[in-house]
């Protein structure tokens, strides 16, 4: 940040503003859980924070009977993990829509197993609704092709860089797959004892499960007419299902180009005096 404090009247003006503050002056208030860096960068990218938005769902995840000697997706659990997240995300988007937002930045999507019981989890989506000071280039809107506010789990810093580079976020896209890896049969396990061997059915199961999660995420991005997906994270969660059942969860931000060139100013090199 480059600014001359004395020219800006700092801290004189700041203290005068505090002295002038009266209750109830402001017509519109915002709240935001962005960090100060993120807040300032989002402002600099030309967006104003409107308010903290959140959506939440406490969900009972069903039970699935399966054949435990077979590699298979546990569809009931996959559906639960997807549906509950979708409920939370949709509720957050509705809040943002009511505020007249163009988008939501810094979205966090968490699962917390609460004290309600072992099959119950809270799915929560929290972000900061923002509105642009300027319309998007070429007379287009910042909202996505469903006329919903865009969503993005990128940090304020990444959001700033993305917009500088001529891209706009369209929406968070996700895919999930809960997969059960077969237990080995007794004679297989006996043969493997003490040997360094690949377990082909494990390898194949993990490939299959990740592929399902990623392809579901890609399908969501295609539905938004995205050019690509940035910041993809491919997580695996054991949750509370035991060693053979794992959730593979892919999440990222689908983006579209704002202009043809994608240059950002060449970064200066700095040597920080901290770790």
């Amino acid at each position, binding site marked *: 940040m480059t600014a001359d404090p004395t020219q800006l009247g700092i*801290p004189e003006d*700041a203290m*005068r503003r*505090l002295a002038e*503050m009266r209750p109830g002056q*402001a017509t519109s208030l915002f709240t935001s859980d962005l960090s100060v860096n993120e807040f300032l960068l989002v402002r*600099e990218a030309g967006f104003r924070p409107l308010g903290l938005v959140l959506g939440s769902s406490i969900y009972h995840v069903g039970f699935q009977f399966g054949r435990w000697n077979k590699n298979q997706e546990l569809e009931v659990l996959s559906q639960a993990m997807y549906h509950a997240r979708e409920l939370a995300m949709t509720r957050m988007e509705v809040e943002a829509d009511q505020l007249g937002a163009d988008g939501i930045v810094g979205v966090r999507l968490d699962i917390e197993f609460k004290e309600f019981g072992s099959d119950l989890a809270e799915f929560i989506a929290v972000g900061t609704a923002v509105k642009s000071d300027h319309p998007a280039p070429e007379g287009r809107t910042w909202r996505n092709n469903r006329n919903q506010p865009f969503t993005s789990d990128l940090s304020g810093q990444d959001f700033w860089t993305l917009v500088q580079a001529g891209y706009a976020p369209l929406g968070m896209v996700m895919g999930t797959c809960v997969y059960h890896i077969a237990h080995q049969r007794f004679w297989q396990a006996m043969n493997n004892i003490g040997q360094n061997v690949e377990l082909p059915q494990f390898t194949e199961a993990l490939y299959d499960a990740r592929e399902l999660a990623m392809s579901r995420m890609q399908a969501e991005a295609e539905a938004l007419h995205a050019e690509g997906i940035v910041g993809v994270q491919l997580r695996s969660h054991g949750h509370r299902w035991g060693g053979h059942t794992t959730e593979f969860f892919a999440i990222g931000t689908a983006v579209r180009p704002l202009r043809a060139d994608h240059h950002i100013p060449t970064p200066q090199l700095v040597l920080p005096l901290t770790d």
Partner: protein
Amino acid sequence: MTNVEGVADWDGRGLPPVAAERMRRAAEGAAWTSLLSAPAAAGLEVAGFDPAGEVMGSMVQRIGWSTYYGCGASGWYGASAQTITSGTHPQAGFAPYAHALESGWATAVGRMITEAAGIGADGVVGVRLSRQSLGNAVHEFTAMGTAVRARSATRPGRVFSTHLPGQDVAKLVLAGWMPAELAFGIAVGIRHDDWNTRQQRTWTAGNVEVGAYTELVNDTRADARMLLQHRIRAVGADGAVIASLGLSTWEIEPGEGHTDHVAEATIVSTAITQFHRSREAPSRSLTYLPLKRSRS
């Protein structure tokens, strides 16, 4: 006032005698202490603030459950129950419990501000808040930070406070924003486990949203957010940056075969106000690449 031995005689007004004595010494020009990190100190220096001393406020209170006013269930095994929150039902639910939490924080922060005002400071930065259980429903609320004085001719007649560290305060001030005060939104909600809820959580229920609990946490959070908005408006600020958004839930059994769930939501933030007159903030970022190892 300066009788340090007479702690037990303190009537709860103003500052405890030991704290008052420390403030007197600080005001007389004793060496100042601070909780600032080096970047925080450097940042404040650039933004025109000098450290004045370390300040704290503390308050110990008992928060009992004796103030339980019922959960709003219609009939013990009735099919319907509703969520009761402290904000929308100030006379019911756990409103007195929520008020006790509020007054715990307000008193601790207030005493910290009193100390800061006592040494002629204009604000307190990097405030750390903590709540510690001392057992038997007794809790200590503590606020601790570094008091700073602005290099300005205007004295605002109030002491600002913020959870933000010095370097963040500096960045905000240079971009035309000023922290005003710590603002809290605290709400407690309660909901009776009705027949529907009990059905939704049995293991045969399949994939289903538990509507009652979802409503409980959403209503309680919504309440806390609404109270925070009221607080920011009362301060006269333009907005707030949130430090933490906490929610805890637990089960209580006020009677045989009667369970309720309670949710407690606490939002801690700093209300901020804009003082730059231009439409755009007067800052400009520099893109740079730090020459250090990346995280992974």
